[in-house]
């Protein structure tokens, strides 16, 4: 089974975001950048499927700056076989140009499965994986929490509001991973050592201009400092009073 896993380098979820001097992008100096958490589920699923099949290849693909090599190495350390960096310094907020370069890279790769995280925790687009599937005209299930693959067919479950959709498809297919799909493994020391020697190809690419212009990036309005209504159970009547007559939410 040949599987591609598309990953993105993003600021850690515990990082404090600092907006840069131009007021249009974050300043990522001093911020810990990591493999996007949802992509970890995609990597883990690729490794599990490859291990279950007994043979195959898991290829990590990322669009990003040179620094994204480190992120690809993380996935290689988890157990993927080789990496491809589609290198660009451009930061594109319109997902379609990014999907186009990935689709071009993946198109002739003879992949049985192409996996993504359901979204990247920086821009929250929830789009690139689904768009790649559309561009390649492949079956696609997004935000999957369960997956079974057998005999060239797949069955996946995705959570919707108040229920779960069960979706069937044939391979090749594109899937995007939700939290809960699996428990991603930690790279072992041996994996980290081996990852240094695994092939990582860097290809220079350019992104089409998207249709989004940044006017500004700002911190959300600070919440008004709240108040401690009181201590313990005695404070409950005052809370209820405030919720009814001040906040008017009860």
């Amino acid at each position, binding site marked *: 089974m040949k599987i591609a896993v598309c990953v993105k380098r993003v600021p850690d979820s515990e990082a404090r975001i600092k907006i840069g001097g131009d007021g249009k992008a974050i300043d990522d100096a001093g911020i810990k950048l990591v493999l996007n958490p949802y992509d970890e589920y995609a990597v883990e699923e690729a490794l599990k499927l490859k291990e279950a099949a007994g043979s195959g290849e898991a290829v990590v693909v990322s669009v990003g700056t040179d620094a994204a090599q480190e992120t690809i190495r993380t996935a290689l350390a988890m157990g993927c076989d080789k990496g491809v960096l589609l290198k660009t310094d451009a930061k594109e907020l319109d997902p379609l140009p990014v999907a186009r370069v990935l689709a071009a890279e993946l198109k002739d790769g003879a992949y049985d499965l192409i996996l993504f995280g359901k979204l990247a925790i920086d821009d929250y687009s929830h789009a690139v994986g689904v768009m790649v599937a559309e561009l390649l005209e492949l079956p696609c299930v997004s935000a999957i929490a369960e997956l079974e693959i057998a005999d060239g067919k797949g069955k996946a479950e995705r959570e919707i509001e108040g229920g779960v959709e069960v979706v*069937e498809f044939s391979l090749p297919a594109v899937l995007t991973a939700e939290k809960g799909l699996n428990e991603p493994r930690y790279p072992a020391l041996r994996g980290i050592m081996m990852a240094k020697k695994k092939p990582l190809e860097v290809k220079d690419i350019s992104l089409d201009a998207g249709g989004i212009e940044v006017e500004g990036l700002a*911190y959300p309005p600070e919440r008004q400092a709240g108040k401690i209504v009181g201590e313990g159970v005695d404070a409950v009547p005052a809370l209820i009073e405030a919720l009814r007559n001040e906040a008017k939410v009860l």
Partner: protein
Amino acid sequence: MAGVMAVLEQRGGTLKRVSHEVLTAARGLADGVGGEVHVLLIGGAGVSAEGVGEYGADKVFVVADDKVADYQADLYASAAAEQAKAGDYAAVLVSATAMGKDLAPRIAARLGSTLASDVTQVKHDGGIVVVRPVYAGKANYTLKVTGSPCVISVRPNAVTPVAVARAGHVESVSPALGEVRAGTVEIKAPERAALDVAEATVVVSGGRGLKEPEHFAMLEELAEALGGAVGASRAVVDAGWRPHAEQVGQTGKVVSPNLYFAIGISGAIQHLAGIRTAKTIVAVNKDPDAPIFKVADYGIVGDLFEVVPKITEEVKKIREG
């Protein structure tokens, strides 16, 4: 004439509340560009577009076919893209629900257009301008969307529905549905019909402070009394106490309810990012220095096992009285 197309969402033939929100966003944008609001409603044979005109729809296109009674990604994408191509639209709007988050990028890819996901504001200001929280709400982009047509998904609870009477002229259409590549074969109902945290107007979330998974029953009781949903912190989801669907925060759901209770949640950055747009936040925690109190509108320092049942009791009195 460039107008706006709004793709509505129904479940079991009944419009979801988010449909009125996306209609209101579409009406505002259409007024800005000087165009009409056209609605696309896809559903089974009995689907009804009743009342859509009351929320500002000039025209309502209905695709009524049992093949598309429930969400079928490929068929819905085909119908929406075909219908969008048939009109001259500046923008196509959908709700950023489980369906919309899947559908919006499909439509954008089929139209070769720009996508702005999960926006909290859409306006016309010398062009289409959206506000889009990124880093799970730690920062907000103001973006000019220059691609035309563009697809925009609107976050649930971010827009307050406004009734604006328009003709709402209903027309039955049958755009090409195309082939099913990945087909939904079943929709499993949950064991207990739960309201989704992302859509609920009241969310009662619990964290480590609850000590044991069984104690969430206390939060379920409060949520039920308020007609709300139960949420959970990452710590308790990772510990397997609660399903991931309930997780609030950067790797869970970003919520904007009218009222949010953080019970026994200290307030890690990634959790706070997910509740920033909640209108009123109430925190109950035994630690007076917990970061949650810095963002909570109202805090009670104390033992949640005493405080929460008392809140539930008071809420029940109000609801019954």
